[in-house]
């Protein structure tokens, strides 16, 4: 599903952020990406979402070499990903429904299809009935669940989450992680960047550990 092959990423101002990173995630696999702040977790995720491109090596998503992807193909590659952020990145002037519907609207789905899928997705994260609310009227945990509903509404094969529980208390964090496990069970590949080590240990999934840009455990 996702393959990193001797990947290096260097920023002119910060030097090497990722050095010779190689790993392979199989379809339906659940993995955590850990490491200290600045170890390169976010950069690694950015390479997958094509927010950055690597300097050396190859990143393969579903067999497609992302290095060779043209700029105009980026939107279509991103539609295969469900992205989840620490700060949720919701549109605060739109309702929960509109937020979750955004990927479907962008992909050009019809009205009924959108309505049905958004409801299903909100049901999955336990927010059915809150479609008409605005994100800022919801709690942090609920906002993150809106973010997750948006990420999965398009049924992407790979979910990437960058510190999804960074702003949440342990109990809510565990709930969110449980949701990710549910998605894994239906065949979605999950990669979660986090530094919540106790939670990672408790869940017992594969761990990719970065240290100063090098993969020290996989």
């Amino acid at each position: 599903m996702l393959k990193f092959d001797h990947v290096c990423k260097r920023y002119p101002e910060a030097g090497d952020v990722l050095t010779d990173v190689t790993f392979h995630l199989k379809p339906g696999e659940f993995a955590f990406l850990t490491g200290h702040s600045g170890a390169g977790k976010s950069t690694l995720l950015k390479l997958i979402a094509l927010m950055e491109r690597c300097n050396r090596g190859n990143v393969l998503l579903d067999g497609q070499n992302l290095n060779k992807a043209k700029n105009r193909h980026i939107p279509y590659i991103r539609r295969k990903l469900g992205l989840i952020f620490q700060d949720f990145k919701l549109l605060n002037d739109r309702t929960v429904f509109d937020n979750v519907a955004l990927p479907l609207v962008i992909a050009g789905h019809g009205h009924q299809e959108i309505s049905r899928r958004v409801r299903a997705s909100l049901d999955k994260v336990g927010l059915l009935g809150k479609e008409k609310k605005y994100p800022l009227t919801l709690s942090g945990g609920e906002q993150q669940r809106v973010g997750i509903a948006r990420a999965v509404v398009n049924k992407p094969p790979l979910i990437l989450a960058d510190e999804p529980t960074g702003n949440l208390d342990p109990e809510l964090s565990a709930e969110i992680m449980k949701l990710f496990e549910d998605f894994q069970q239906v065949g979605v590949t999950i990669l979660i960047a986090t530094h919540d080590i106790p939670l990672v240990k408790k869940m017992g999934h594969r761990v990719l550990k970065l240290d100063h840009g090098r993969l020290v455990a996989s």
Partner: protein
Amino acid sequence: MRKEYYRKAKVPVRKKGFVSNLGDKLHAYLDIHAHAFFSSLGRLVRAPFSSIMTIAVMSIAIALSAGFYLFVANIQQLTDSFEDSNHMSVFLKEQVSDQAGAKLAETLRSYGNIKDTKLISRSQALTEFREYSGFGAAIDALDKNPLPAVIQVMPSSESMTQQQLEQLRHTLSQLPEVDQVQLDLEWVKRLQSMLALAERGVTLLSTIFGIGVLFITGNTIRLELHNRREEVIIAKLVGATDRFISRPFLYTGFWLGLLSGITAWLIVTMMMMVLQTPVDELSKLYDGLFNVLYLGFIEVMALFGISTLLGVSGAWLVLVYQLRQLNPE
């Protein structure tokens, strides 16, 4: 139950035929357009102050071009009517009687290159002079009528060349009854060349104002893009193409252009209405030669079309450049 979530949706999609699926997509595409079309208008309405400011500036620029264009068109009409009445004044010698004059007018009318003639006898000339010149008292002080009889000659073809007219003038001046023939259109020619210059001026001015409108829209869209930066970035992250993101902004440009065009038209029309009465009065003094011209239907449509096009192009120019730079970090 949970496994169903990912599977549920696939079934009905597969059931659908290719055509109905295509119909759905088309429907969705039109929906997106309709949404962008109305939501961009809604945004303008919800920020009335800045919208009105922008539209005011744009419409004044457009109205200046359109107004100048209309001004030239009106003056042009004036010279056109002079060109139409390309007539000559044939002044008769003092000793020629009214009957002889009438007879000559009759004879001239039978010439191939003369359409019509009209005799103004000496007494008629005197009456007209008294009426219009304001020197009636001065005329009365003279013991005899100093004015000659005149035959006004209208050449048959309006498109007669200057040379042909000159030739006709020469022929007429050779007649024994004729004192002199005046073909005094020199000032019309001067006015025409001035108008040609003014027309060039209109083109230049319109180009400059057009570029101005382009920049005003561009700048408005740039600010709008800046205000909605977060939204654009999120849309990019969930897989929106630049085309999808551009659409509402292009429609904003469309609305700004169209609304400015309409406002400019209203401004120009109101200006002409203010001028209507004095111009009509002036025109009356010149035998109703002159009518106030308003923008015609086609010209109004062209005005709307061009201003809309400028709005969309201004937005497009900014989007092409700015969207490439606006990337998620």
